[in-house]
C-alpha cells in the first residue's frame, strides 16, 4: 500500500482500507509502524481496534474457563511458545559457547569458573528506528564478560552476529524479542565493532553495535 509520510488525515475510503488491512494483519512491518503512529490520535480508528482487542481478550477469557463452555486448548499456540522458549535457551547456550570460544576457558583468580555472576549488560534498542546509545547496566565490578542484548522488531528473521575475525554466527531471538550474546570484555575495543544483521520483510537490515568501550572500562 502507498505510504503517506505526513500525519494529515487520509481520505475516508483510504483510511478504511488501511484499517482493514491492519486488522487482518496484512500490512508489512513498516506499514504497521506507520499506521499505528497515524491512528494514535484518531478516536474512530481506536474504537475499531479496541473492539478487535476486546474480541481477542474475550476469546482468551472464554478459552481459560472451559467450565463455562470454553473453546479447545490452544495446542498450536502453546507448542509454539514452548518451542520459542527452548530455541531461546539454545541461543543462550550458543552465546555461552561464543564467550568460551573467544576468551578461552574462563578463569578467575587462577581457578576455572563455570558461572559469571551479574555480568555487565548492554541493551540496544533497534525498535525506534534510530541509533540511540545503549542502556548500560553495570553489573558486578570487574566482570570478565559483558552480556549484550539487542531488541529486535517482531518480524526480524535470520539474525546473525558479525564479529571481527569471526565467521557470522546465527542468533535465535528470545520469545520477548531480544537476541543476546556474551562477549569477553577484552573484545570490546575490537575493530570493526560487532554488527548484527537480520532480514525484515525480505529486506536485510544491518546495525553496528557501538559498544561504549571507554565508559565500561572506567566503571
Amino acid at each position, binding site marked *: 500500500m502507498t505510504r503517506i509520510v*505526513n*500525519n*494529515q*488525515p487520509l481520505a475516508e475510503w483510504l483510511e478504511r482500507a488501511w484499517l482493514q488491512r491492519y486488522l*487482518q*494483519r*496484512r500490512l508489512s512491518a513498516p506499514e504497521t*509502524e506507520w499506521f*499505528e*503512529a*497515524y*491512528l*494514535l*490520535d*484518531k*478516536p*474512530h*480508528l*481506536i*474504537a*475499531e*481496534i*479496541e*473492539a*478487535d*482487542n*476486546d*474480541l*481477542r*481478550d*474475550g*476469546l*482468551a*477469557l*472464554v*478459552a*481459560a*474457563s472451559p467450565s*463455562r*463452555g470454553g*473453546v479447545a*486448548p*490452544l495446542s*498450536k*499456540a*502453546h507448542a509454539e*511458545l*514452548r518451542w520459542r*522458549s527452548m530455541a*531461546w535457551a539454545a541461543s543462550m547456550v550458543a552465546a555461552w559457547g561464543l564467550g568460551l570460544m573467544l576468551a578461552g576457558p574462563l578463569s578467575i583468580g587462577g581457578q576455572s569458573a563455570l558461572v559469571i555472576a551479574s555480568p555487565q549488560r548492554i541493551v540496544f*534498542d533497534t*525498535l*525506534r*528506528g534510530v541509533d540511540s546509545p545503549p542502556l548500560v547496566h553495570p553489573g558486578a565490578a570487574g566482570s570478565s564478560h559483558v552480556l549484550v542484548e539487542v*531488541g529486535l522488531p517482531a518480524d526480524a528473521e535470520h539474525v546473525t552476529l558479525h564479529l571481527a575475525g569471526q565467521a557470522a554466527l546465527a542468533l535465535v531471538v*528470545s*520469545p*520477548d*524479542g*531480544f537476541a543476546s550474546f556474551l562477549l569477553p570484555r577484552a573484545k570490546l575495543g575490537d575493530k570493526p565493532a560487532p554488527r548484527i544483521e537480520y532480514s525484515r520483510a525480505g529486506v536485510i537490515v544491518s546495525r553496528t553495535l557501538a559498544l561504549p568501550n571507554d565508559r565500561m572500562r572506567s566503571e
Partner: protein
Amino acid sequence: MEAQAERSGTLDCVALVGRISAGDGAAETEFVLAFQAGVRALVRRHARPGDPIVDDIVQDVLHTVIQRLRENALNEPAALPGYVRSTAVFAVTAEYRRRGRRGENDGHAESPEALPDPEQPADHARRAQLRDGVQRMLAELGVERDREVLRRYYLNEEDRDAVCAALSIEPDHFHRVLHRARARMKELLLRRGIADMQ
C-alpha cells in the same frame, strides 16, 4: 476548537511539543487527552490477551514521553506520534523481557485469568462482561466452523489464508465472520461507554 482538532485527528503536534517543552502544564494535559486512548489500544494489541499490566504500561509510556518532551529531547516535533508509538511498543517488549528473566512468560499467553490479580473490582466486572459478551456472540454465530474461524485467527494467530485453507472457506466468508464478531464487540464497547469519545 482544540478538542475538535483532536477528534478529527489533526492535532498540531509541533505546537504541542513546543508548549510542553516551554513548561506549559495545560499542554501536558492535552497530550494525555489526545494520546491516552490510542496508547492503550496499541499496548493492548502488542500485549498478551487480557494482561492486567496494560494500564501500568500506558501510564509509564505517557510519563516517559512527557518527561522527554519537557527535556526538549524530540528533534522532530512532527514525529511525535511515531515517537509515542515506538515508546509504547518498546515498553511492552521490555515488560515481557523482564518477565522472561523471571521465568514468568511460559504458560501465560492462554491463561489471562491466571495472571496476577490487580484486585480491582471494576476490572473483574469488565472481564466478566467481556467473557459473557463473547460467549453470547459465539452462541449467535450458530455454526461451529465460524467459531473455529475466530479461535484460529485470534487465539492460534493463524493468518487468513491458513484459516481459509484449513476450514475450506472463501476469504469473503472469513471476512464476514470477523466483521460480524467485531461489530458485536463494538456494540459492547458502546454500551460500556468507552466509545463515547467519538
